[in-house]
């Protein structure tokens, strides 16, 4: 052939086999198989005629939803209460999370860092529903317990996110200000805070979206709002009313998601 083809071209290099990946894949498949075997659930019951009929009957009772004015007003009130619970819980979490994030980012030494990290891990590991069950005992039934539960859990989540943001930002601007003679708080406020603020608000809005969904579920343990109404109407088998409440939940989630996306789009002009 031509001279170009006879020039020795290096054989295509083959990547060495990724033994870690294969071992991992095997372990994951084994874990999945073990899980199904351990639970030993008879899924055939799901496809039996009687259970299909029961499920279909149950779902059918949800339509048509109860659209009388009184009940729609009640659902709207519940939605407002759920929004209030989520909003105030998230706002409290921003304040306390930011406060705990400062020691957790190592600004006051190693020991406070470990203590703050432990506290944040504890707060975020306990699920919101468990916090709500505990808060109902402390603060009584009602939306206040839900607010506290969301505030406690979200403080852990936001505190950790804020601490990681604080650790990741470049220290040069703040150090420049400190070496120029500025006080500690001023240096932090003018050099570090603008860099983390936009991302911090984005995280908070994202958590608000998730907290709206959680606030509805928290009502199941008595924390007020749409969830409490939903639990009540489901337990007395009033599926039509439960259906209206579910629709109210979707509308609320959709509205908050859209609002949050809009605000995030405005805040972060270069956000991808």
């Amino acid at each position, binding site marked *: 052939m031509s001279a170009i083809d006879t020039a020795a071209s290096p054989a295509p290099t083959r990547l060495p086999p990724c033994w*870690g*990946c294969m071992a*991992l894949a095997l372990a994951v498949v084994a*874990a*999945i198989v*073990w*899980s*199904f075997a*351990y*639970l030993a*659930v*008879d*899924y055939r*019951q*799901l496809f039996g005629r009687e*259970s*299909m009929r*029961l*499920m279909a009957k*149950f*779902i059918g009772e949800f339509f048509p939803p109860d659209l009388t004015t009184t009940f729609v007003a009640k659902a709207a009130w519940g939605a*407002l*209460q759920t*929004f*209030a*619970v989520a*909003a*105030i819980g998230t*706002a409290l979490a921003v304040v306390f999370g930011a406060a705990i994030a400062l020691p957790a980012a190592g600004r006051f030494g190693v020991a406070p860092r470990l203590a703050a990290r432990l506290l944040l*891990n*504890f707060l975020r*590991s*306990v*699920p919101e*529903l*468990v916090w709500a*069950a505990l808060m109902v*005992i*402390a*603060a*009584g039934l*009602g*939306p*206040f317990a*839900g*607010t506290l539960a969301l505030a406690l859990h979200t403080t852990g989540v936001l505190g950790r996110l804020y601490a990681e943001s604080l650790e990741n930002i470049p220290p040069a601007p703040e150090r420049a200000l400190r070496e120029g003679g500025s006080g500690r708080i001023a240096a932090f406020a003018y050099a570090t805070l603008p860099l983390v603020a936009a991302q911090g608000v984005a995280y908070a809005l994202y958590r608000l979206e998730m907290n709206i*969904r959680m606030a*509805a*579920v928290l009502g*199941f*343990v008595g924390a*007020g709002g749409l969830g409490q109404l*939903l639990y009540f109407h*489901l337990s007395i088998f009033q599926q039509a009313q439960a259906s209206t409440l*579910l629709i109210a*939940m*979707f509308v609320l*989630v959709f509205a908050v998601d859209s609002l949050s996306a809009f605000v995030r789009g405005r805040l972060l002009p270069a956000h*991808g």
Partner: protein
Amino acid sequence: MSAAAGTIAGPRVTLRDPAARTRATALVVALAVLWPLLWLAEFKPWHLFDSGNLQVMASFLAGFLPPATAPEFLALLWKATLETLAIATAGIALAFVIAVPLAVVATRALSVSRIGPGPGRGVGAAVRTATRGLLTVLRAIPEVVWALVFVRALGLGPGAGVLALAVTYGGMLGKVYTEILESGDTRSARALLEAGSPRLGALFYALVPSTAQELASYTVYRWECAVRASVVMGFVGAGGLGQLMDQSMKMLNGGEASSILLTFLGLVIVADAMSALIRRVLS
């Protein structure tokens, strides 16, 4: 520097913050909105310090120590932990099976009709929108409501929890897979589709290699969340640590509740570590 600026001749300029008015308005609006919200949420922190409440809280907290360590209870705890892990893993496996086909249909990166002019754009867009709508519906209904539906068919127990997790997390995984597949570099997928490759071929040879780490990372994160969600579903009867905790709290057995909480914290830490390990192996 300030001395040099001071010597420039000219009328004295009063310093004014251009953002001051916007910020003041935003603050007033926020306070005006906050007040009714606080009232709606019945935000009365002073109730926490009512004498009756404090006593109830104190006796409840006192009951938490010491944590229960009887051998039969520890055996129950071990079984419940395994059950929670199994529910989470089985739920995520089924969610994956639900999410992948929906994501492949809904993602714009694998859409042949979008490439260049030609028939089928409207149909393609309609199918994608319908699939995204389905994913939103799956995500929107809370797991506990799905669990109640499946309890009708399977009775109380872990089966209802697994299916409820599968449906909800299938929706979440599907939505995020769609977005991840679109967010990478889709030119290679487009090149393959233009050359006539089947969609699955374009998926496996062009999209998955570049996005595999992100896909796997999110799936492992969702598995961690599933572990927590299966505890929550245990409260409505789906077995595992949640059901055990619900029973202990109903009997006001603080010692057992604190053992279960500590086990749960340990489980979360282990799940966190495993997830970090898997993500490190994949990178």
